[in-house]
């Protein structure tokens, strides 16, 4: 088997003395899409943030191919190879869409403007936002902003892309336009670690699912088997909470429709 792109070895992380990651290990191989799910506060975001050095691990090691990256000084060089998109709309509000896209490749990678610009236009077109190149972020909808954020990360040609609940702050009708872009990326072979609460998306996109609980990976498996019959009781309960929520939501929706008819 090929060497993994990313190798997380038994990392620990505590905030103010309380452990958030308590020994997490994880390998991600080239072209693999790993989806991380788990209850709120179990450490999913912290795990991703440790991987690209926004948080320092207390213990353990993180390797990107043959480079030890945990505790590294020149983290910005590593981050050029690990893209990350967050939950909040994090475009730079004082720059047009195109300038948001050009910043990383031109300043961090020192590529010439013309080359990047052509590529940026092409990618914008692919996500259906070509006509927004000269728009300011505040004129975009949430879903459009997140698509631009994805393009911005992809223009760095990262070896690994980390997505932390990128649809959690979106209105429901915009979720799929963003997730479709992610599924596209997966089909193109992008290596990704994705934290999400969208279970159907998780099932569709994942090569492997990790279920985290209280700072450890409690269960791990292929999406088909994990979602159908999780091995641990906690994972079962967690998945159940979603079906409950969605049946309830459906009930409310039909109720609302009835009221609308009356």
């Amino acid at each position, binding site marked *: 088997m090929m060497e993994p792109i990313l190798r997380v070895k038994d990392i620990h992380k505590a905030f103010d003395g309380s452990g958030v990651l308590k020994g997490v290990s994880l390998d991600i191989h080239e072209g693999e899409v790993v989806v991380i799910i788990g209850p709120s506060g179990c450490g999913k975001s912290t795990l991703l943030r440790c991987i*690209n050095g*926004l948080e320092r691990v207390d213990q353990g090691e993180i390797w990107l191919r043959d480079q030890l990256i945990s505790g590294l000084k020149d*983290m*910005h*060089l*590593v*981050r*050029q*190879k*690990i*893209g*990350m*998109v*967050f939950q*909040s709309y*994090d475009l*730079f*509000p*004082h720059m047009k869409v195109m300038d948001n896209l050009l*910043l*990383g490749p031109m*300043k*961090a*990678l020192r590529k010439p403007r013309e080359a990047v610009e052509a590529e940026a236009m092409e990618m914008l077109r692919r996500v259906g936002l070509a006509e927004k190149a000269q728009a300011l972020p*505040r004129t975009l909808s949430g879903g459009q902003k997140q698509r631009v*954020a994805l393009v*911005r*990360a992809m223009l*760095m040609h990262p070896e690994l892309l980390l997505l932390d609940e990128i649809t959690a702050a979106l209105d429901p009708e915009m979720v799929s336009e963003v997730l479709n872009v992610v599924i596209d990326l997966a089909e193109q072979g992008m290596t990704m670690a994705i934290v999400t609460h969208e279970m159907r998306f998780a099932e569709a996109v994942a090569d492997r699912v990790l279920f985290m609980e209280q700072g450890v990976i409690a269960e791990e498996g292929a999406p088909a088997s994990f979602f159908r019959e999780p091995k641990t009781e906690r994972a079962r309960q967690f998945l159940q909470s979603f079906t409950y929520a969605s049946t309830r939501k459906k009930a409310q929706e039909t109720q609302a429709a009835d009221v609308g008819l009356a």
Partner: protein
Amino acid sequence: MQDLGISILFKGVNFQRLLLGLWVTLRIALITIGISTALGLLFGLLMMSRSRAARGFCRVWLEIVRFMPQLVLLYLVYFGFARLFGWNLEGETSAILVFSFWGTAEMGDLFRGALTSIPRHQRESAAALGLTKAQINRYILLPQTARRLLPQAINLSTRIIKTTALVKMINVTEVLKVGQQIIGQFYREPSVAFWVYATVFLMYFLICWPISLLAGRLETRWSAG
């Protein structure tokens, strides 16, 4: 009768004297704004420093500036310090000292507010693009801080310009003082007071109005993040 009052304004060098007075006002204001901006940036950084002592020092400074009437500070420095330490401070120097003491703290607080109002995610998503700390400061944090700071800093500047009217109380011959001298000289013409003060009013207005228009314009252009 009333035309007599207005004609006095343009009699001899009266109008030039008013303009000279206005220049004194502006000179004090401009120097104060310059010092306040430069020191205010340092003050703002100090307010965010890790040292509790530094933060406490800034807080006390800011509180003093906020509850102390400017006039009291002016008197304290111009009359009080002069007697106590035998300093021979000119009125204009005292005024610049006092106003800068005030402006530095206010500007610093605005700077701190602007810098801390930038969401943490701005820094982090710039970092995630592989930019260095210096690049993040230059391309992301500084421009956004400037956009938030500039309209408020301009408003503070108009407040400083207005407040310079107080310096006539410590014998600085600025525009208001000149006006009063002219009124005194032509006391036999009752309408002269109206015309002089109306002129001074207009002068302040013509200076502060465009500035505050500019601030408003920048604010709407840059506000919605």
